[in-house]
């Protein structure tokens, strides 16, 4: 009997200890974000961290410090929601954060000055562009290791994958061609020349080829049938057929288009043209310019919501608004004076936009219907960009 009591007491202690361990375990696990779609990610360039803001309450959930002199450039969440990644431009490293616990789980050396990045649709591969290294680093998200560096690019900025994940397209800002990468072999298999450089360039290459504003991104149309690549120096948009990887049409737009942004309904796309401070609205059905409208200086991004397009003019402190049904200007929103606007993301309900403003270290939340602005301060130093999982407007500058 005494033995039985002893056994029961021991069993009780064991059970209590197990429960206590489990409780401590859960606490130690420290789940900070249970739903990856519930947060806005903010890249803070000068405080070297990624901050997380709750979409509903607009309160900061937490932040992950990456290290001194990292200068994160762009942030993105993996399609499975498990990881948040960023490239540290000054550190030449890629950083992988566990979304649930907000723990920095891996730091991977990549090539020089990593900036923009993309995930393959199945979450398997993370392609990190290294503009100063003229390469793409391929990171395997199963082993969380770099498996390859693909060389041969010229200032590669943005990476886009085909919906089936078979090929990736790389915009070369220092050249006039789009690189096609076979995702099975992670090899550059083709260079698609967007257009011929004018003959005059050959006479004075230093003048005409020294400061190339080439291709920022090859953006797939919403139906996935074509890719559109704007070339800044040439002032055109090349339409690429990904079945043959050939340019099938050129569309002349304004001067020095920064890049192309796709409307969510698949009808129109917009190029902000910083050379003449206009925007070109491209009809995706006819592949022609449907409207050219006045805009502001130094445009860094375009967001779409509530049937409108919001064009960010970084140095003027204005966001220019356009009605995408009538294709006419719909006013502009003054965000402040002597401020620097960066880039924005749109929530998945397409109701609000989250715009990074680096001068006052704040996020400006724009209501797409009313154009009202809410300010959230102290998000970190020099917020550079924002990102929401599954948003259709996730981009960087």
């Amino acid at each position, binding site marked *: 009997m005494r033995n039985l009591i002893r056994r029961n007491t021991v069993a009780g202690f064991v059970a209590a200890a197990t429960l206590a361990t489990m409780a401590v375990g859960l606490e130690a696990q420290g789940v900070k974000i249970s*739903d990856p*779609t519930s947060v806005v990610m903010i890249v803070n360039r000068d405080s070297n961290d990624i901050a997380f803001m709750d979409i509903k309450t607009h309160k900061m959930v937490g932040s992950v410090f990456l290290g001194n002199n990292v200068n994160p450039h762009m942030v993105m969440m993996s*399609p*499975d*929601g*498990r990881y948040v990644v960023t490239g540290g431009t000054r550190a030449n490293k890629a950083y992988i954060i566990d979304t649930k616990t907000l723990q920095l789980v891996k730091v991977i050396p990549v090539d020089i000055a990593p900036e923009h990045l993309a995930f393959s649709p*199945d*979450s*398997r591969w993370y392609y990190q562009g290294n503009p100063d290294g003229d390469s793409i680093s391929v990171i*395997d*998200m*199963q*082993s969380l*290791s770099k*498996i*390859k560096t693909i060389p041969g690019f010229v200032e590669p900025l943005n990476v886009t994958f085909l*919906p089936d994940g078979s090929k990736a397209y790389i915009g070369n800002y220092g050249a006039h061609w789009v690189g096609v990468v076979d995702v099975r072999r*992670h090899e550059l298999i083709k260079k698609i020349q967007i257009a011929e450089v004018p003959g005059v360039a050959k006479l004075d290459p230093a003048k005409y080829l020294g400061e190339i504003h080439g291709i920022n991104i090859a953006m*797939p*149309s*919403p*139906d*996935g049938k074509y890719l559109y690549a704007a070339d800044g120096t040439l002032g055109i948009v090349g339409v690429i057929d990904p079945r043959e990887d050939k340019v099938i049409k050129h569309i002349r737009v304004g001067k020095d288009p920064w890049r192309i942004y*796709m409307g*969510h*309904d*698949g009808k129109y796309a917009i190029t902000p043209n910083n050379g003449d401070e206009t925007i070109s609205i491209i009809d995706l059905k006819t592949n022609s310019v449907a409207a050219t409208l006045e805009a502001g200086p130094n445009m860094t991004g375009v967001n779409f919501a509530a049937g409108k397009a919001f064009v960010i003019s970084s140095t003027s402190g204005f966001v220019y608004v356009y009605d995408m049904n009538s294709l006419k200007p719909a006013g502009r929103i003054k965000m402040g004076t002597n401020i620097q606007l960066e880039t924005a993301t749109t929530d*998945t*309900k*397409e*109701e609000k936009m989250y715009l990074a403003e680096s001068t006052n270290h704040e996020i400006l939340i724009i209501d797409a219907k009313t154009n009202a602005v809410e300010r959230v301060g102290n998000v970190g130093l020099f917020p550079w960009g924002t990102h929401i999982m*599954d948003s*259709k407007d996730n981009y960087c500058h």
Partner: protein
Amino acid sequence: MKVRRVKCEDRRRWKVSGLFALLCTLHFTLCTSPTSAQGIRDRIRGDRDKTTSVNEAQASELTLTITQVEVRPIQVWVRTAGTGEGQVLRAFVPNDDARFIKPDQRVRAFPPEHRSSMFQARVTQVTPGPERAQVIVTLVAPGLKGSSRYVLEIVTEHGDLLSVPNEAIIETGDKRVVYVQGSDGSYAPRDVELGVQGELFTEVVKGLMPGEQVVTFGSFFIDADHKLKGL
């Protein structure tokens, strides 16, 4: 003189031919007698290593990648077709898959005509049926105008399980094999028993311990080398 020399050479030729015939006979005997042939081969080769080794240059060429066996969350994306009006879509899923579908789970919805556009959605209701369950999914925002059909990917969580990357697993007949890295850097095959197969990782029920390192990218080449050696 000339003739004699020819004869002499002929004799030599005959001698060489005789030796060649003897060697052929010996070779034939050895080859047709597997036991003794294997014995000779074993004596020549000594104790054969049952593992495969890869030097640094080869590993780089093969982009050989090693991943740790560990407990990680496994996601299965249940794919189905959904139809409906407005933001509410209805889909049917076999009961086997429906076991893991619960309200509020994340759904990725793609209109077939807009392959690059993904619309976020949530599971709002699951009604079991005799063979299939009816799953109601609600789009977070209005979907594509004029589109009533969507390809749905329902993101189901199966919990934290001991797992390896899908790519590490090689199917040979009825067996499932992974290549495990030894302490000396060599690779040896190991039979494994598998459980839930997720999008990126598969549960390992038997055959591996947490902390062991398995080959993922490049496992096919290790396997090929292993088979070439006849191990």
